[in-house]
């Protein structure tokens, strides 16, 4: 039999007489996790301070008593339950002076951070990534900058312990390939994505969202290679829907498109670091953006679902409200719409359309996409008028359709514009399916926002696997 104990456990101290009695009766090894001189009445306590046996036997509670038969574990008891110990040991008077029951304490092998350390230490690590040694005199933060791993901001050092902890955020194997990461088109394993998620500052509970975002970015229709390589402003913008929003504490309220929420800021950043480090996509390399935009560090936010009058973006795209999803949209910068006077849906729709018509260029039609982020105060106008999302889309579409003659090349003395052969046509501003609408933002403020899109990519939505 094997007993695992520690001095810093009242129950282990309590049952010392029973252990001594047991030692006299059967072949017993006692392993002490914190002090090999405990229990003092046992002659040959085995020093278990390295915790290897505890790790290998998956000990969670001390004391644990394990029965071994033919080299295999046949029974296990945790804590002190007198009748159970008597029954398993076949000693009917064991612990006669002890109480019937005393709960055990936590094993030192499951203290915070310890399982990851032990997994690495005893060679069971599933990690295959190359180890980059950091000399004791070396600054690891500077090393990461020098190696080109950073987007320009400091990174969390991806130690083995941190990466193992990140991997605890999913049940999937570290070796599983999520997708082929552009632009170098190399396999993106869950392990490599976890390393980048650590560097971005993610918590393990965010990791399923990061994995879904990477999976979405690898879909052909999203065309991540083009999103990166274009001279345009585009970046993969991550919109999260479903119960996971509140489970991981994402921001859907005040400053939703801005800074300040760890999940929002780090999930988007993790995706961009994956593209940079695994995919090899770097500014000035395959990333040929002429100007870029600040959201290229990472751009992720959640829809405000709980009080929305309209179905969410994910529901509109065919998912259930109880499913958690990520949608990727190839977006440029944020363009505010400020209408402080419209109180009716017709006026507000025309107002939104007026600004939407300027996306990309006021005379370019049918070539681009956009995302409209409706704030609660703007949505109230539609709710009070009883306009469904479908009705709003219909009215907005009409307001976004113009006579071709107004926007052909040369009109208004501007060379840019649509081909003259379209002068007699009615032209729609956005590609079919190219206008995404989400509800987000703080409770006060008659603002909405347009995130300009890039017509070379189709938005994609994937379910988040827990």
């Amino acid at each position: 039999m094997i007993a695992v104990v520690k001095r810093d456990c009242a129950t282990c101290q309590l049952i010392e007489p029973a252990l001594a009695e047991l030692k006299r009766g059967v072949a017993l090894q006692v392993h002490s996790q914190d002090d090999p001189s405990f229990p003092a009445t046992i002659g040959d306590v085995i020093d278990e301070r390295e915790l290897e046996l505890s790790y290998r036997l998956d000990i969670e509670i001390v004391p644990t008593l394990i029965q071994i038969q033919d080299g295999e574990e046949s029974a296990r008891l945790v804590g002190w339950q007198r009748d159970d110990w008597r029954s398993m040991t076949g000693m009917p008077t064991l612990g006669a002076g002890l109480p019937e029951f005393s709960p055990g304490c936590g094993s030192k092998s499951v203290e915070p951070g310890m399982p990851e350390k032990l997994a690495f230490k005893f060679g069971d690590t599933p990690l295959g990534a190359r180890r980059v040694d950091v000399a004791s005199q070396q600054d690891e933060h500077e090393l990461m900058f020098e190696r080109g791993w950073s987007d320009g901001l400091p990174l969390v050092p991806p130690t083995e312990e941190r990466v193992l902890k990140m991997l605890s955020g999913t049940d999937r194997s570290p070796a599983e390939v999520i997708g082929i990461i552009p632009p170098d088109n190399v396999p993106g394993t869950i392990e490599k994505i976890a390393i980048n998620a650590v560097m971005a500052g993610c918590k393990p509970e965010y990791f399923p969202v990061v994995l879904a975002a990477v999976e979405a970015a690898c879909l052909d229709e999203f065309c991540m290679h083009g999103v990166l390589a274009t001279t345009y402003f585009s970046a993969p913008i991550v919109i999260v829907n479903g119960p996971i929003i509140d489970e991981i504490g994402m921001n859907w309220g005040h400053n939703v498109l801005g800074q300040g929420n760890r999940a929002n800021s780090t999930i988007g950043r993790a995706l961009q670091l994956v593209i940079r480090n695994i995919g090899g996509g770097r500014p000035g390399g395959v990333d040929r953006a002429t100007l870029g935009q600040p959201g290229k560090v990472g751009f992720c936010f959640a829809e405000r679902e709980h009080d929305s009058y309209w179905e969410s973006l994910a529901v509109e795209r065919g998912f259930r409200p109880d499913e958690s999803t990520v949608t990727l949209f190839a977006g440029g910068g944020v363009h505010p719409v400020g209408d402080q006077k419209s109180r009716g849906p017709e006026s507000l729709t025309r107002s939104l359309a007026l600004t939407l018509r300027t996306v990309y260029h006021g005379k370019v039609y049918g070539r681009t996409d956009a995302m409209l982020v409706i704030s609660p105060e703007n949505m109230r106008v539609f709710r009070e008028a009883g306009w469904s999302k479908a009705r709003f889309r219909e009215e907005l579409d009409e307001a976004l359709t113009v006579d071709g003659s107004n926007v052909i090349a040369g009109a208004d003395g501007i060379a840019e514009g649509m081909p003259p052969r379209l002068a007699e046509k009615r032209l729609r501003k956005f590609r079919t399916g190219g206008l995404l609408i989400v509800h987000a933002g703080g409770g006060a403020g008659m603002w909405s926002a347009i995130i300009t899109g890039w017509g070379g990519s189709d938005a994609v939505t994937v379910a988040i696997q827990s």
Partner: protein
Amino acid sequence: MSALLDPTSELQPAQREALPRPQSLSDKRVALLDISKPRGDVFLDHLESRLGELGIDARRYIKPTFTRVAPVDLKHQIVSECDAVIEALAD
């Protein structure tokens, strides 16, 4: 000493030597590749006409969209039919 895990693909990018430029285009067939960017056709129309004046055989090819890399079939077709390629890359 501590250790960090490498976040990169750990691959050395494939280095391919560009083929030597042809000394002359006589007896060569030249591919003119339009990537579907605005006015790429104008540029290639002009080149095709100039090459024609020089008696050089040129063939036109077009990518379905500039936003994506060329389909592998198109690349193979160009390689099998032509000796050199001129691409109207940017507007």
